[in-house]
């Protein structure tokens, strides 16, 4: 019997030869996972073709949440379409609004006042923290760890309280709109936000102690679903999925928008497990643990950005002054494609105008849509129990996949 090394993920396909099964007759089984399933992060259906516990092939079927928002975008003015972008990646509504607003502003040649830019950055980064908290909590839940979920949502409540104070909504904000933000900050908001930053910063290390370096969690996620850097780029992965594979690519640094070049922050990437205690032994660059841990590190960087933005927040208009009365914008017969770095990946908007106030085409490129496409490639040869680990580490929101 071959020695199975406990330190590394065994290669399950190494002696897979159906002919040598002897008198054990195995049959392939088609297992349907979803669309209602606690671990698929929404209405995702994956059909697994398994031999026993081992998955030979996984085919994802999507479209259960398809609402064809792009068709709706062809009959609404851009500022009316903003609420529809909220509902795509509904966990990161602020970032979605920001992306579409930036695309329309670039197309129509609108210059946004500096205060609006800073506000957008603050709310975008706070939403990044809230979104990564959801990802962290639900990933723990998928792996069977029930405690981190409530801790994550307790902190997220504070962020949602801040959002509610600013715009009145907790999930579908429609706050960052074409030209700036719909409302200015209420009094005392900046102090409350700083209080939250001070409160939350030590919590991230607490959660790392609780979940990230937990032996069982590491065993379930290290070495699972490894995506090489080359594969990640070829398959169009972005966000923490791309950075978890060791590719230091972040649109906030490479193609900055909304003044991100003013802020000082780092881009965490996946690192291999080694002898130092910062990365557990057994972790391979591009595995599920790396993708997950990049999100934990990104929360720390987001706090840095929020603090800098709050410190430097200028006065002035929160929106282009003439938009306070009339938000109608004439779109030229021209096109634009603009991507922003959202918590789940790069979200791009292609807007084609035709001279009127209503666009001829609005296309939304969802980060989760592209990230999910690698599932069939990466799940081959893993165990059924690894499938939730991989899906959870990709962190999909079906609203963004299906739009």
């Amino acid at each position, binding site marked *: 019997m071959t020695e199975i090394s406990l330190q590394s993920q065994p290669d399950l396909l190494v002696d897979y030869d159906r002919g040598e099964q002897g008198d054990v007759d195995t049959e392939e089984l088609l297992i349907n996972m979803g669309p209602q399933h606690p671990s698929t992060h929404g209405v995702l259906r994956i059909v697994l073709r398994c031999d026993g516990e081992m998955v030979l092939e996984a085919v994802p079927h*999507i*479209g259960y949440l*398809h609402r*064809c928002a*792009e*068709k709706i975008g062809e*009959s609404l003015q851009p500022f009316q379409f903003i609420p529809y972008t909220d509902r795509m990646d509904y966990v990161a509504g602020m970032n979605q609004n920001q992306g579409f607003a930036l695309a329309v502003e*670039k*197309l129509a040649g609108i210059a946004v006042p500096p205060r609006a830019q800073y506000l957008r950055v603050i709310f975008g980064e706070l939403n990044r923290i809230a979104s990564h908290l959801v990802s962290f909590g639900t990933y723990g839940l998928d792996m069977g760890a029930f405690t981190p979920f409530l801790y994550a949502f307790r902190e997220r409540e504070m962020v949602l309280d801040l959002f509610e104070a600013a715009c009145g909504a907790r999930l579908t904000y429609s706050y960052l709109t074409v030209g700036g933000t719909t409302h200015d900050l209420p009094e005392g908001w900046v102090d409350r936000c700083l209080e939250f930053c001070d409160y939350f910063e030590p919590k991230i290390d607490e959660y790392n102690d609780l979940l990230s370096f937990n032996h069982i969690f590491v065993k379930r996620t290290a070495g699972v679903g490894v995506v090489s*850097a*080359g594969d*990640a*780029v*070829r*398959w*169009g992965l972005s966000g923490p999925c*791309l950075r978890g594979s*060791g*590719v*230091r*690519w*972040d649109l906030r*640094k*490479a*193609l900055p928008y909304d003044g991100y070049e003013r802020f000082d922050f780092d*881009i965490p*990437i996946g690192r291999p497990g080694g002898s130092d205690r910062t990365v557990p032994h057994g972790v391979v660059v591009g595995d599920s643990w790396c993708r997950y841990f990049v999100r934990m590190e990104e929360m720390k960087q987001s706090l840095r950005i929020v603090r800098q933005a709050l410190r430097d927040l200028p006065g002035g208009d929160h929106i282009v002054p003439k938009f306070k009365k009339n938000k109608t914008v004439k779109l*030229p017969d*021209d*096109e*634009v*494609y*603009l*991507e922003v770095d959202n918590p789940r990946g*790069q979200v*791009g908007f*292609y807007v*084609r105008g035709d001279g009127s106030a209503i666009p001829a*085409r609005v*296309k939304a*490129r969802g980060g989760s*849509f*592209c990230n999910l*496409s690698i599932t069939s*490639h990466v799940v081959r040869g893993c165990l059924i129990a690894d499938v939730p680990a991989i899906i959870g580490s990709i962190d999909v929101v079906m609203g963004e996949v*299906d*739009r």
Partner: protein
Amino acid sequence: MTFEQIASLLRERFAGAVEEVVPQATRPYVTVAAERWPEVARFLRDEPRLKLNFLRCVSSLDLLAEDSLAAVYDLATVPDAEAEEVLSCPHTFAVRVVTDRAAAHIPSVAGVWPAADWHEREAFDLMGIVFDGHPDLRRILCPEDWVGHPLRKDYEFPVEYHGIPGTTEHELNSPRH
């Protein structure tokens, strides 16, 4: 390299394939003939000066006035190894491929960028562009038995689907759009 430099490089390398260069657009693009698109795509990906290895998006476009459909490919260069310096001036590029509305066929580039797989399925599903050579061209967002391609400008929403009404009598008699 700037957009003009990339466009003229394509023009000299693939004489006749580049139909139109639009540098004045907010996001400039070139139009490439459909039958030459895969070789141009391979060049864009492999040429050392460009290395446009990241397919960002494939957007389908309905040009009803010109009786054609188009697919717009947005590309970027992403360092695929751990680079300590993030590229300060990354390449981005956009290519439009136009085809007839009546027989909408564009050769697939899923062999060049695997990311194109799902994007082309979506363009087929919602706009009805058939991508020749695609490994698995079937609907991705709409149900398998859906009729029609929703994003086309002349699309008629079905009155009912498996017994579920798609509209009301009021809408049928006095449509708003």
